């Protein structure tokens, strides 16, 4: 019987998240790490890891199927899920930005067309600035949209900015800084308080090491 189930965002964050958990004492057996199984237990058998798409981490945790999870702040902002976020992690650093071919966004024609994988973040940001926009939701290669004329600008994640530059885009505005968060289901936080707080403490230490 495992104590806690932890949902990990696959992809960009996965390796860093597992390294952080290993420093906190949660190690995965080698053969499990290499396998394609999506649910595995750590060496102690006390923790079960599930690997899901980033946008699904808040879903599993909000429903209590996973007690906690590691996922980027960008995903949390987009999902608007009701979760506890007790720890900001020093991994997966990036920025959510508005980028365009030209630093002057408005060409005087009013409505701005925005291509993005993050429709809610984009709508909220432009809404707060009173800028009318048409949001075009894409699921990848967003940088292409302004180049081909589908949109005037994009709202996207940026780590180094290399992809933007290579596609002739520049950062117009930084909407938010993002890094990974440790999130916890509200019920698990109370009902498994001992397990959650000891994991939280171990992660906090591992995270501090990283910060230093």
């Amino acid at each position, binding site marked *: 019987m495992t104590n806690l189930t932890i949902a990990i965002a696959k992809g960009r964050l996965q390796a860093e998240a597992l390294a952080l958990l290993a420093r906190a004492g949660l190690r995965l057996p080698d053969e499990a790490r290499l396998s394609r199984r999506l649910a595995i237990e750590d060496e102690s058998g006390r923790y079960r890891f599930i690997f899901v798409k980033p946008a699904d981490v808040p879903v599993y945790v909000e429903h*209590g199927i996973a007690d906690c999870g590691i996922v980027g702040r960008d995903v949390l902002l987009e999902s608007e899920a009701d979760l506890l976020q007790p720890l*900001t992690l020093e991994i997966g650093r990036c920025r959510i930005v508005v980028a365009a071919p030209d630093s002057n966004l408005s060409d005087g024609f009013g409505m701005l067309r925005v291509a993005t994988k993050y429709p809610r973040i984009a709508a909220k940001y432009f809404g707060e600035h009173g800028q009318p926009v048409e949001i075009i939701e894409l699921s990848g290669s967003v940088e292409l949209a302004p180049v081909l004329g589908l949109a005037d600008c994009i709202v996207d994640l940026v780590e180094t900015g290399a992809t933007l530059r290579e596609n002739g885009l520049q950062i117009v505005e930084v909407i938010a800084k993002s890094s990974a968060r440790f999130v916890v289901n509200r019920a698990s936080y109370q009902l498994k*308080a001992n397990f959650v707080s000891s994991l939280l403490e171990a992660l906090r230490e591992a995270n501090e090491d990283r910060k230093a």
Partner: protein
Amino acid sequence: MSESLSAIPSGVRYYFGREAHLRRAIEHAAMSIFKAWSYEEITPPSVDYYSLFERGMGSVEAQDAFRFTDTDGKLLALRPDVTSGIARAAATLMAKRERPLRFSYAAPVFRLRAESHAEWRRESTQIGCELIGRNGCAADTEVLLIAVEILSSLGLDGSYAITINDLEVFNGIVGRLGLDAPAQEKLRELVDTHNAGDLERFLASYASTEECASFAQLVKLSGRGEVFQNARRVITNDRSVTALDRLEALWGVIDSLGLSAHFEVDLGDVSRLDYYTGLIFKIYVAGVGMRVGSGGRYDQLTANFGKAEPAVGFVLDLDALAEAMRANESISRLGEVAERTAALIMDEDPAVLFREALRKRERGDRVVINLKRDLIP
């Protein structure tokens, strides 16, 4: 423009079979316990003026209501909560009754929610109670004990936790910062999600180092009796200290009744600042990701209906309770319908058939009439 006949609107559903039976049994168990604590059952109208809910729930929450207009043009709503209707009755219809008033209810509520979250349903049944006209530790303890008895009667002992907090602890600290409404809401959200990292950054521009420390404690202070000691070390303003005293007194009573194992103190629970005024509590059950119930003190509510008096109460979500019982395999606890085997009765002559059926029913047997297509012309 016509939907397929099998389609039903999002967020609503049918209940039948074992699930319907379980829901009825839970409702019955809870209502019997309310009755045994001398709570009078009350059912407010299902349709009422929209303005009632604006007064009762606040204008933001009330926007969730399904709305339509009366023949005279007045705006009506399908009730999105039960408490508003009870608060109005307490202040008007029952203004002259002796206090305290004790009411219980089990009734469906309707909310026009957009699709998205874990708790997304548009119709749900609320089971709850209100104790109106008394404040203080004894009234708070009374409703908490009723919640405990209901959870226990459903076989959930050892699988549930009730968190308690007093919102005045938070209000006392915020009061000193002089924040405008949007900033206060941002702060509430950061504390409520226990988001220590962002909280620290947010506060840096508003608060002294010392005040930052008290907030940091708010989001970390969750636990049992030791919370009070830790809290008093960093939280020293009068308003918060009065609230801590009140909460600690309540904890003392809970502890002396031997019930503290079911309870936790969570000073970071600040989910409804606009509604609750002091005590706030949440009920969680293992195996259910969402809250099963919540409650607290709302001393401002009846003032909105012209008669200010203290009130405390809670509400349980029937679907969440059913889910909790399923997850904890405590369904048999409700003696799942005396499932007697049904006597299958058939006879060519309807008179003979139903005479036999009536005789069995008089004995209390369950019957199922075998209605052949051609049995009764």
